[in-house]
Structures are given as C-alpha cells and as structure tokens.
C-alpha cells in the first residue's frame, strides 16, 4: 500500500478544471422547475422555481441540507419521480434540445441511460442482487444499442476497465453481494458511463463509503469526466467533496435555490446567511476546539486481550474451516469522562468492539466495566450493568422499532428497568425530547416521520434515559448532513460537559473525530495499529495506515488541489483466516507520551 501526499503539500492550481465552463455548450437546462407531492391537503410543492444550466464537461454540485429537494430535482431530470404521488407541476427540463417534461414514458426510455444517466446513493441496494454484474451491464448496453451479447460483453469489460475495477473478467460473473461497497459503486458508475451519456447525475455517490474508498471513487469520477467530457451533476452534503469536485455550486434549501456560484467564490465569499451557516458547520481538521484535560483519569472500561471470532462452518459435521478474526487480542483502556474515538476502514472490527462491550457478541479475553465483567454476572447483575452502558447504532432507522411511537421508544428503557411511575416516566421522556432538541409533539409520532438527523437524536435520547456512564456512538453521525451533524456533535459535547459522561466514538470521518475526541485509536484488520491523544495522532501520525486515512479526507477548500495519488485497485485485505492459522500479533510501542504505534508495518 502506498502513502499519499502529506497534509502540508503545496496547493497546485486549477489545471484539472475545464477552462471556462460558461462558454461551453449547454447540455441540460432546467427552468423554473416545480415538483409537487399529492397529499390530503392538496398539492404540496417540494421543489419550486429551480433553474440552472449545465454545460458540457462541467461539474455542478447541488448542496444543501437533508430534505431540501436535491434528490427530487435529480429524479425530475430523469423523469423517475414516484408518479403520480410526486410529479412535475411546472417549468421545463431541456436535454440538448429535447423537452423532457412532456415526453411519454416510451419516449423517455431511449434517453435514459444513453443520454442522461444516474448514479444512486446506495450502492448496496441500487444493484439487482440476483443478477450478475455482467448481465446488468450488458443489459443496459443492449437496451440502447442492439448488438450481440458478445459485443456487449466486450463493451461492458471496457467500461469496467474504465472504472479501474481489478480483474474485470471475473467481476462480470460475480453478484453484487460478492463485491465491496466501493466496488459496487464502481460498477454503478461503469453502468452509467457505458453509453457515454451527455449528463451524469451522481446522487450522493460516496456518502455510504468510507474515506479511503470515497477518495478512489471521487478520483475516478474526475478522471472519467476529463476523458469523456461528460457533464456531471453531483449531489452531496459533504462540503469537502464539493470543494474538491465542483466547478459551480447550487445551494438548496426547502425546495428552492439559495445561492448559485462558482465554487471558489462560494467558499471564499458566501453571499447568503444560509450558505455561511452551512460552511461554518463543516468540520475541518485542525479546527477542533482545545479540550479540557479530563480530571483524574479514572479507569472506566478495560479491554484485556479481547478477541472476537466468527467461525465459518463447512462440511458434513459443520466443522469450523475458517474464522473471521474481527477483533484480535485488543487491549484498551477508556477513562471516565473522556471521548475515545475508534477509527478505521469498513470491516476492520470497530462495531464488533462496541458490540463486545455491550454484550451483543461473545468474546474471549476480558472486558471490565467499573471493575465488573459482564460475563461473570448473573442475569440481574447484567441488567443492572446495562443501565450504565448504552449504544447508539449506526443506522438510526434500523435501530428503532418502526411500530412504536417515539414516546414509547424513549420510555422503553425506563419501563424495562422499572424506573418511576408512569407519570414520572412521561415527564422524563418530555425532558429528554427537549434535551435533544425535538418538539414535544414528537411523542406521538413514529420514527419514519422524522428525518435522519432527528431519528439519530431519538436514539441518543433513548440512550440518555438511563443516565448511563458510557455511551457508544457507532458511526452515529455518518449519515447526517453537515448542519445536523454539527448540532448532534454539539449536543454530545454539551452532555459530556454537564454530566461527565464517557463516549466510545466510532467513526471513519477523521474531521469529526478530530473535533470530538480526547484520544484516538486506529484499527486495522481487527487490531489497533496506533493509539494516542488526539494531538499526537493528528499532528504526528506514525503508522502508514493512519496517514493514509488522514490523506483521504476531502478538504473543504476549493483552492487546494491535491496531487493525484496512486490509485488503489487491489482487494481489500481480509480478516478471514483458515482454521489453525491466525493473524500475526502486532506489538504496540510507546513512542512517547502514551502514543502507541505498531511499528512492524504490515499494513
């Protein structure tokens, strides 16, 4: 694996950008677009008065908070709105001279994919799970350009090579679930560009990916654009991505445009308050507030040689033939009142560490919480211990039972532990709702009626209900847009200040981590490769993997252009080891001030 450029590399100006987008031909022109949803109270406008032009070879970013109508706009351009519930009620969408809003479904078909293509947010679900990658690709090609299967396969291969997927021949025969998230997103991109469309709409193409993969995908999009001259509409709420990718930016809010500006101008001198707010909310590395030294370093949690393995069984008797070494002999201390962040790429065992802590997966070694080990306790003791330990899961929607009202959900821990009378419980729920900045009316509503950020706050409220000593936040802010993310982080910080609560914070977003942590541990393939205080880690990263993580972070500053880093196309290293063998144990060495690094760089 390679190391990318250090953080302090000098900015190289603008050679990657097309000379002057405004002078290029307009490929897509949206005028006064209005999209409305049908509801009991008549038509509710979701997007209104939206206009923009997209030039050949340009990247237009649409940014804005969740629910501002970004996806609706892009779907309207594709004519993929969930009609008749939501439909275009005014304005025009003109694709190189063709008025799309008036086309019938039949007339729209030949355009989709061929002249205007789209990449969806969720690479996990956007591909058909029961068709091979090859079939999905060739199908797209053959729909528009009738040709023999053989020829289509060649074209598909070409497209996969273009997105720099390793072993493209093999990939054609694989199913989506056999690919990693990044690979899937590449397939999506390959599918979208196979027919060289004029316009490519990418709806949050990287939100679901971790930093290193995000880096690769963004690089890829840029290269492709350079080669093919495709115009790209990039929808994102990550201002870092905007800064790196876009030529021009549209900032949306509540269905209409707040501001349109070239990217440099926007970042340098935002005209609207909302834009300023948005930019201010962006966490930047190096801007984390100095954090008070937690008093007294009292030990709260100790991981002692903790391992978690998932056996893979095979054969007639179900013998264990191999083992996923998700967490491998990890030792770690968490002190009362501090925030310890666990970072690392997808699949490195972060969530498993958290689950072992709260007793959701069996583990070997010992975890002591306040000196007590969950495994040694009886049911009653475990239940009591659970009061002190709460976890906020990565996907708030999945972690909330969709059939219970928010009130019931937050009340549930109180009911389980029999705290207070019904009236007291209700009062406590109200208090918690207020605490996490949710309206009291939320009590009667169901989780699906909230936005992602609000749901995450519901989870936090629920975790707080029992006044725990420690909360595990497993990627709790990854899916949130910047402004909400900022608000949630503030909330967590406030709580810590007020109640001295301890956090185990799991994330792959280095900027966020830098913002909130006291100490950071970097995990790689189930083991900790580097651990130290925030400053030690961010100013003096030692392990190559830590450095790579840091380098991959998009920087919300359009003036800064990174040198093209070497592309990674190899397989993701796997934590699966055949039975009998196991990964080599990494030795952590203290390089001063409690900064531990695994020096034999196997990563």
């Amino acid at each position: 694996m390679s190391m990318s450029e250090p953080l302090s590399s000098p900015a190289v100006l603008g050679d990657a950008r097309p000379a002057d987008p405004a002078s290029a031909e307009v490929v897509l022109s949206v005028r006064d677009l209005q999209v409305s949803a049908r509801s009991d109270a008549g038509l509710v406008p979701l997007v209104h008065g939206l206009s923009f032009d997209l030039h050949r070879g340009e990247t237009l970013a649409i940014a804005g908070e969740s629910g501002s109508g970004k996806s609706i706009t892009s779907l309207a351009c594709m004519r993929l709105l969930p009609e008749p519930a939501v439909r275009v009620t005014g304005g025009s969408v003109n694709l190189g001279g063709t008025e799309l809003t008036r086309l019938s479904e039949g007339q729209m078909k030949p355009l989709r994919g061929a002249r205007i293509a789209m990449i969806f947010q969720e690479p996990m679900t956007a591909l058909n799970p029961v068709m091979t990658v090859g079939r999905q690709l060739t199908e797209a090609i053959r729909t528009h350009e009738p040709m023999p299967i053989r020829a289509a396969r060649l074209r598909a291969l070409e497209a996969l090579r273009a997105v720099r997927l390793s072993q493209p021949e093999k990939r054609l025969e694989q199913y989506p679930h056999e690919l990693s998230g990044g690979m899937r997103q590449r397939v999506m991109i390959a599918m979208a560009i196979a027919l060289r469309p004029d316009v490519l709409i990418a709806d949050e193409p990287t939100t679901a990916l971790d930093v290193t993969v995000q880096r690769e995908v963004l690089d890829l999009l840029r290269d492709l654009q350079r080669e093919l001259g495709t115009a790209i509409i990039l929808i994102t709420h990550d201002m870092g991505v905007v800064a790196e990718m876009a030529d021009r930016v549209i900032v949306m809010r509540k269905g209409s445009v707040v501001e349109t500006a070239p990217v440099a101008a926007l970042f340098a001198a935002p005209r609207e308050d909302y834009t300023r707010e948005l930019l201010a909310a962006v966490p930047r590395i190096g801007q984390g507030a100095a954090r008070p030294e937690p008093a007294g370093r009292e030990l709260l949690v100790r991981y002692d040689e903790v391992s978690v393995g998932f056996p893979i069984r095979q054969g007639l008797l179900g013998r264990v033939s191999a083992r996923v070494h998700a967490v491998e002999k990890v030792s770690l201390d968490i002190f009362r009142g501090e925030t310890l962040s666990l970072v690392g790429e997808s699949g490195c065992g972060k969530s498993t560490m958290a689950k072992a802590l709260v007793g959701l997966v069996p583990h070997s070694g010992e975890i002591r919480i306040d000196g007590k080990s969950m495994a040694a306790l009886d049911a009653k003791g475990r239940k009591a211990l659970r009061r002190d330990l709460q976890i906020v899961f990565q996907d708030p929607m999945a972690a909330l039972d969709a059939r219970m009202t928010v009130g019931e959900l937050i009340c549930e821990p109180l009911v389980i532990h029999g705290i207070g009378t019904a009236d007291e419980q209700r009062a406590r729920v109200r208090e918690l709702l207020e605490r996490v900045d949710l309206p009291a009316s939320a009590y009667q509503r169901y989780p699906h009626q909230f936005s992602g950020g609000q749901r995450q706050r519901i989870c936090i409220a629920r975790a707080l209900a029992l006044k725990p000593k420690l909360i595990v936040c497993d990627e709790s802010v990854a899916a949130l847009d910047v402004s909400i993310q900022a608000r949630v982080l503030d909330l967590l910080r406030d709580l810590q200040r007020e109640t001295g609560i301890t956090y185990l914070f799991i994330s792959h977003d280095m900027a966020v981590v830098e913002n909130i942590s006291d100490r950071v541990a970097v995990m790689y393939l189930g083991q900790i490769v580097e651990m130290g205080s925030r400053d030690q880690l961010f100013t003096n990263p030692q392990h190559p993997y830590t450095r790579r993580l840091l380098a991959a972070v998009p920087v919300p500053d359009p003036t800064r252009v990174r040198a093209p880093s070497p592309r990674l196309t190899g397989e993701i290293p796997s934590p699966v080891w055949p039975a009998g063998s196991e990964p080599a144990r990494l030795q952590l060495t203290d390089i001063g001030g409690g900064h531990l690094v695994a020096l034999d760089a196997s990563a």
Partner: protein
Amino acid sequence: MTANASTSPEPQAQPETGPSALRRLFRRKLALAGLVIMVICIGGAIFAPLIAPFDPNEQFFDGLTIEGAPMPPGATYWLGTDLLGRDLFSRLLYGARTSLVIGIVANGAALLIGTLIGVTAGYFRGPVGAVLMRFTDLMMAFPALLLAICLAAIFTPSLWIVAMVIAFVNWVQTARVVFTQTSSLAERDFIAAGKTLGAGHLRTLFRHILPHLVPTLIVWATLGISTTVLLEATLSFLGVGVQPPTPSWGNIIFENQTYFQSAPWLVFIPGAAILLLALAFNLVGDALRDILDPTQQGRD
C-alpha cells in the same frame, strides 16, 4: 428492505395522532363493511334460535318433491331446502356456530401454535430451535388426514375435538413461515438495541418481534379461514367433528356437492357464506395491518 431515511417517499404531514386504532378502523369504508359482515355472521350464529324460521333439523314433508328432490329457494324456504327437506337458511344460521368456531377458534389456535413454535425456534435458535424445527419438518411430512382420521377414531367426535385436530395439523405451515421471518427479524438492529437497554426475552418477543409478524399472520389467518372450514367438512365426513344432523357450512357443501348441478343453491350459498366470512376478516385484517404498521400509512 428497510425504508431508507432519505429515499423513502413519505409525505411529511402526518398530523394524525390522536384517534385510537379502533376509530381509525371505523374510518375505512371497506374495513367497516368487513366488520359489518363479521357482526352479521357472529350475530346470526348467536341468535340463530331467534332468527331461524325453522328448526334446522326438521325434515319437512313439503321440503322435498315427490321424487325426493330438494326445493329451490322460494317463499316458504327462503334459500331452498336440502336433500332431506330441511330449511337451508335455518341450517346456515346454525351452521355458522360450528363454522365460526372452526374458522376462528381452530384456525386461530393453529396460528397461535404455529407462531409460538416458529417464533421460539427463530428467536432462540440453538438446540431448542433445532428440535422444534425438526419436529415441524416431521409434522409437515406427516399426512395430516391420516392423523385426523386416527384422532377421530380414538376420541369421541365432537366440535372441540375437530377444532383441536385442525389446530394440531394446521400450524405447521405457519410455523415455517414465521420461523423464517423471525430468524431474520432477530438479526435486525432494533432487536439488538432492545437488548442493550436490558429488555428481556419476553419483552423482545411481544413488543418487538410479534408486531412485525402481523402482516404475514393476517394473510395466513384469513386464507386459513376458508381452508379450515372446508377441512372441518372433510373431517366430519370421516367421522371426526360434528355429526349429522348438526350443520356446518363446510358439511352442507360436502353433503351436497355432487348435487351442485341439480341443486346449485345447496353448494353455492354456503360457499358464498364461507367466502364472505374470509373476506370480512381479510378486509378488517388489511385495515388493521395498515394501522399497526405506521410505515404503511398513506400507501393505498
């Protein structure tokens, strides 16, 4: 597929908070129709002695033609007579008593057993789950009819025996389906979330898993009504269950099915009754599901 926060097209305005499930149920026209039919069926069964124009078992002399053929629907016998000259309408009313017990109680019990076993096996897994599922496989491979016949021969036939037999043979499919669904539910995050809050097994099962099984259970329950009512007739024929002259919708059909050309009313009217009952439950069930599943609201 979980509805993703940002992609699921949900209208935002959901001011409907106050009214209870029952009131919401009443607000749906179809569900109301279903409720009305259910009430009519149950009322007809309970008040059969008051409503029925005749004794259901009385074989009327003028209920048969000289050749011994039954009378078609007419002024005296509103829905016609059966092969013994008995009034079909009265028999239908009294038959509802049996058929409701079968369609609701027996079918419900089957559903209950199936759900219990499926949920237990799917949630606890381990040796208990394995044993339960192997037992289910065994029951599935075992011919239900034979079991019924033997039980019939061993016990004194009665309505409650037949209800028990039906419950005993009909839970298998439900158990299978519920097992599969529970196993996948048990893997979901919100179950784990509940656990970390300290929720015990009972709470998890009743508050978190069962409500999610409701849609499936409704499909099986409503389709099961017809199946079990007809199964009761087969069992009656084999000597389990209600014995003649006690009527049930199923056995009215069975007794007369060979006559469906010469006396169609004897088959199609009780058939329609079964259909209506099943349909009524389905309408109510569908509405109930939509109400219990908040994510489904506004989808129709």
